[in-house]
């Protein structure tokens, strides 16, 4: 259970440790959004491409989020629907996006 808590929590973390409140100006250069799906599933395979296409379209559209780049961090939850998708995913490059100092199998 401890492991799961940790794994779930790390997905919300991206970057370096912070203490207290930190903030940036109202229009940041980039906004990070995580995306979770099973890359190899019927739905996930199509959704992954659709999300990437949408991000391209949003970023090339000057009428929306002008000056701010939308960044998507894609994570493969494998074929499992539940906890296993959270814990059973071995090391992957995407973990680097989410945390910097963990000692066991990451969430993604």
């Amino acid at each position, binding site marked *: 259970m401890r492991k799961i808590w940790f794994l779930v929590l790390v997905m919300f973390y991206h970057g*370096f440790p912070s203490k207290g409140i930190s903030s940036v100006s109202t229009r940041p250069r980039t906004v990070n959004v995580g995306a*979770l799906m099973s890359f190899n*599933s*019927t739905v996930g*395979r*199509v959704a992954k491409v659709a999300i*990437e296409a949408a991000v391209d379209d949003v970023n090339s559209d000057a009428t929306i989020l002008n000056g701010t780049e939308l960044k998507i961090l894609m994570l493969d939850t494998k074929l499992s629907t539940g906890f296993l998708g959270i814990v059973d995913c071995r090391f992957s490059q995407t973990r680097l996006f989410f945390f910097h100092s963990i000692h066991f199998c990451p969430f993604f």
Partner: protein
Amino acid sequence: MENDTVAIIGPQFSVMAHVISHIANEMQVPLLSFAATDPTLTSLQFPYFVRTTQSDLYQMTAVAEIVDHFQWRDVIAIYIDDDHGRNGVSALGDKLAEKRGKISHKAPLKPGNITREDINSALVKIALMESRVIVLHIYPSFGLDVLNVARSLGMMVNGYVWIATDWLSTVIDSDPSLSTSPAMNDIQGVITLRMYTPDSEMKRKFSSGWNKVSKEKDPVEGPLALNSFGFYAYDTVWVLASALDAFFRSGGTLSFSNDSSLNMLRGGSFELDTMGVFVDGEKLLKKILEVNRSGVTGQMMFGEDGNLVHSSYEVINVIGSGIRRIGFWSETSGLHTGESPNHSISGDGLYGVIWPGQTTQTPRGWVFSSNGKPLRIGVPLRISYREFVSRTEGTEMFGGYCVDVFTAALSLLPYPVPYKFVSFGDGKTNPPNAKLLNMITVGVSVTINFHWLSSFYELILTYCIKIPCNMPVGVRCCCWGHYHYHKPNKDSGFYTAIY
């Protein structure tokens, strides 16, 4: 901290959405799921969960209306026993109850790797049951296996009804090679649903560019066939982008604090002091729920319950090597055949269906279960009026005018009714009618179910027509007659006694 994640698109699966939603609440990070359809995810418990696809609550309403449309009452539900399956089927039960129907049997399959043996044992039980209307609510990866086993067990023949939720349309849309594969034989006559997205310039443009995009983004598998979830995934990003735009315009900032109730978990090996709570998360959530834009799926706007407004589904019949749309269901108009779900005359039903077994005749939806009890008919062994009903001496055979009428009526029914005469009384005196009636009502009320009721009803109608006008009817006349207490509500008592 600019590097933190402000929102999550997904997760894809409802089960995982439940897990992550708890954390999203604490971290104040909105989740926008394009594929988690479990109705309970939009509960007040998970304020940070936003469903950017249609809820199974509406899909199950559509299923219940299809069941009602064909005048079936009892259905059997096969599902994976996890949040997604269980909560979807629970919504189906509620919606059927509103139409005075019910789920007569739930067949849960264990989550994870489902084997053919698991499927086989669940289906063998179902085959012995009365209901022939089966709702299959499962994942795309396992659904075809269930239907394949069903066909091998002879459950894809005349008389069966299979309603597959939108997993089947997703499989069909995503795999163009299916139409020429042997698996197509397993799904003949099945009814399935597909989330309806109206045609629009935006949708056409997206669809026409899809092949190129999917080949480019996924060089290994691509080009991919598009399915409805692809449309919703695409719109999800736009919803989030619009909300972020509004968020920044209204002065929202990307501030993260480590002050959360998760503090109690800090220290030790958890390293939770590296986590940040999105301070303006609630504000972003509000902006997401306020989005109102046209996307490739139509209008993306959230109702008060947190679900997308204007839910509608296509109702599809799998025939030959393809599919045929037999109508639509929409939240506002119910089932209808008009091209535009929200603007047609409501309640005009569905086009004709070709059912399993290649028949156009609507299945009755039930059979007498092979392990059920026969219809038991109490026969008083009277000493008077024996020409109406009497037992042949020395046997368990019964004869007389009443028995003849009864058997003649039975022969008119389009299906067999197993029955058994049960004698009452010692044959030396007239047995008390009240006692017999009492025994029947007690016995019947315990064992009766709706299928029996409907058969009783048909019997009685037939019988009433055939009975001569001058035939004395009723208990006091001591001859063939009947008692029946029939209320519109099928749950109420309906008892028959024959004299």
